[in-house]
């Protein structure tokens, strides 16, 4: 064509460059349209990436905040466990002191009664009487101290039940707060995705008119968009689609994913609170039996003392050398023997009481050891957890990752000669909110960082 123009240029004096200009113009127009189209695609891609980044950072920051709050609350839970443990341990110390005192008194009474039993005869009946009488205050003291131990165990039971409920609700409120934090992070994540997606500027201002048409057309107005944003919850996926004035379809997707906050690892006391109650109840029962045994032993010792009193009264006659002496001796020996016989069940009861006290001791020692931090359990958040005595939250099981995926689809326009079309654009960002935080031991330094982005 150019050769032709060149060969015949003398024939055409006017407008010979017009075709060239037209051609150039067409090319320029095509290039401009391609540029506009490409820039629009690029802008959409930028919006998509920005929204993914913003959504992920917002979600990660709120998750980090929720975990930091949980860590701080957890340190208060530790303090509550500590104060509970301290006051209960003091009560145990008191119970041990009193039980030891009771044990020592009952042991003294037993050794006294056993000694009397071994030597009581008519000749020693007066000494036996005086000696056996010394067991009364010992047994009284033991019984009194055992009564105090029972009341102390009752108080320990109150403290343990109260503390296990408080710790359960402490854990429940931290759990609720962390779950709420996750919901809030997802909601805000979606909010940031849509706010940075450039959707608002593509919509018409104000509310849709009554005759706006179907829901997609109504969504083409900014007020409908605001309503949509207000209605965003904690679902993983949200989509906003609308049609513009030229009936072109547009769509923005947001997917915010972070694992559920549901598995809480709790450090619980060695014994569940119901097992503590069982141990305390058993100890109380054994002490009750020991009290009864000591009381019965005291009655037996008193009965023995009655016989020793009679024997002691007959003793001077027995050793008087008078004719009545042999008869007196027979009665005296018989009473001394009866006294010894009366001591037998007493000594047996006394021994049994000591044995029962040892059992109660072992149960109380076990109950105290049972309050120490023990196994780790994964709590469900149901009421069954209340049976454990929670010490603190060991960990909230989570990979500390947030992933946000965004996608935008915009239908091109038909310009007659030119029909524009835009490819779907998608992007994603991953945030790690581990920071240096830990729930236990307390280190509220969770912080969010973008660790992976869409490189396309």
């Amino acid at each position: 064509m150019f050769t032709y123009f060149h060969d015949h240029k003398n024939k055409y004096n006017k407008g010979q460059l017009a075709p060239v200009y037209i051609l150039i113009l067409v090319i320029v127009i095509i290039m401009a349209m391609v540029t506009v189209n490409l820039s629009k695609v690029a802008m959409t891609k930028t919006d998509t990436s920005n929204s993914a980044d913003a959504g992920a950072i917002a979600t990660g920051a709120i998750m980090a905040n929720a975990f930091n709050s949980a860590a701080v609350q957890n340190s208060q839970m530790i303090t509550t466990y500590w104060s509970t443990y301290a006051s209960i341990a003091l009560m145990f110390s008191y119970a041990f002191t009193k039980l030891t005192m009771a044990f020592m008194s009952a042991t003294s009474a037993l050794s006294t009664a056993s000694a009397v039993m071994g030597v009581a005869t008519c000749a020693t009946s007066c000494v036996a009487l005086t000696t056996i009488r010394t067991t009364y205050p010992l047994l009284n003291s033991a019984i009194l101290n055992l009564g105090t131990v029972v009341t102390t165990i009752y108080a320990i039971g109150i403290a343990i039940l109260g503390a296990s409920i408080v710790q359960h609700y402490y854990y429940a409120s931290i759990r609720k707060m962390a779950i709420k934090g996750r919901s809030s992070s997802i909601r805000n994540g979606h909010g940031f995705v849509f706010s940075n997606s450039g959707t608002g500027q593509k919509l018409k201002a104000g509310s849709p008119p009554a005759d706006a048409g179907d829901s997609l057309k109504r969504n083409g107005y900014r007020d409908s968009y605001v309503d949509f944003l207000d209605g965003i919850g904690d679902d993983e996926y949200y989509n906003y689609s609308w049609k513009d004035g030229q009936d072109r379809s547009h769509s923005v997707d947001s997917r915010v994913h972070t694992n559920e906050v549901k598995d809480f690892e709790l450090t619980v006391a060695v014994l569940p609170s119901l097992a503590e109650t069982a141990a305390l109840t058993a100890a109380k029962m054994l002490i009750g039996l020991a009290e009864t045994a000591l009381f019965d032993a005291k009655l037996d010792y008193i009965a023995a003392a009655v016989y020793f009193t009679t024997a002691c009264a007959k003793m001077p006659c027995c050793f008087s050398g008078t004719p009545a002496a042999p008869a007196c001796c027979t009665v005296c020996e018989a009473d001394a023997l009866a006294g010894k016989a009366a001591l037998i069940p007493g000594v047996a009861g006394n021994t049994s009481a000591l044995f029962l006290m040892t059992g109660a001791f072992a149960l109380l020692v076990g109950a105290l050891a049972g309050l120490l931090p023990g196994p780790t359990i994964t709590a469900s958040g149901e009421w069954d957890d209340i049976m454990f005595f929670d010490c603190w939250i060991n960990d909230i099981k989570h990979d500390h990752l947030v992933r946000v995926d965004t996608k935008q689809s915009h239908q091109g326009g038909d310009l007659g000669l030119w029909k524009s079309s835009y490819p779907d654009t998608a992007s994603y960002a991953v945030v790690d909110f581990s920071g240096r935080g830990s729930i236990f031991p307390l280190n509220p330094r969770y912080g969010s960082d973008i660790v992976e982005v869409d490189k396309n």
Partner: protein
Amino acid sequence: MCLKYKIARLLGLILLVAAITAPSIYAAWWDRDTIPLPSGTEEVFQETRNISGTEFVLKYYTNSQDAKAISDFFRSKLTALGWKEKELLKEMSQIPNLKIPGSVEDMLAANSIFERGGETVMINFLPQGAVQDGKTRFTIARGNTEAKKEPKEDDFIPRLSGKPKLDIAPVYPAAALISLSENAGFMRATYFSKDDIDKVSEFYKNKMLAYGWSITDEKPLQKLDSGEPDPSSLCPDCPKDKKIQQAIKPVDMEVQELNFSNKEGDRCIVALAVAGPKDAVGDKLKNTTTVMVQYEKAGK
């Protein structure tokens, strides 16, 4: 020099000496009354609680030194100040056939009880390594244990002194405050009542209305069962005896939860619990109720 002058001079001298030494005597007496603390000790909080019929002031401290160093510090300082240590572990070791597990032995060895003139000081350590943050947590409880009168059963309830700052819910009549935790817009208090759970539950259902609360949810009374307790895990060192084995019985727990809200959107949970042996009629714990009241301001 006349006698009067001499006496006046002597008196003056005595007064001077007294004036110079009085502050140090007073300080020495004051020091004698203060429990010395190892360096680096930080007080975390304190509370006044009834323990076994005596009102004790419990102060909670942390220190970076280990429990043994702190325990040794108190043993030497308090003994120097005239406190006499009660050797509980030594006394307990005299009980024949009583096996004390290592964990309890360590605990009792670190813990100490000191007595002086009717006063008792108990030092208790949260077991070393329980909270793995490098801090030793210990408590000093101090109270006057000189018995003025024989304590009654009610005196043993581990009652906490004080009451919640927030008057947001009724307190069951004659209920004892057992624990309290309060901060901005939040309160959790536990009470103990000698009445049964149904009566206490009815009280809260009726009386909360007067405080502007209305019930939003009620978790019905639920029974949680311990199952058959295993004596070997519950008391591994118990003597193998029928009476002892028979004393270990199954226990259960009854729990109920009432949820309330008010016009402001604040929430209040009232949780009620009772625990005790399943078959025990008339068991003291079985006929009593623990109540937890938890208040959360809207938006917390």
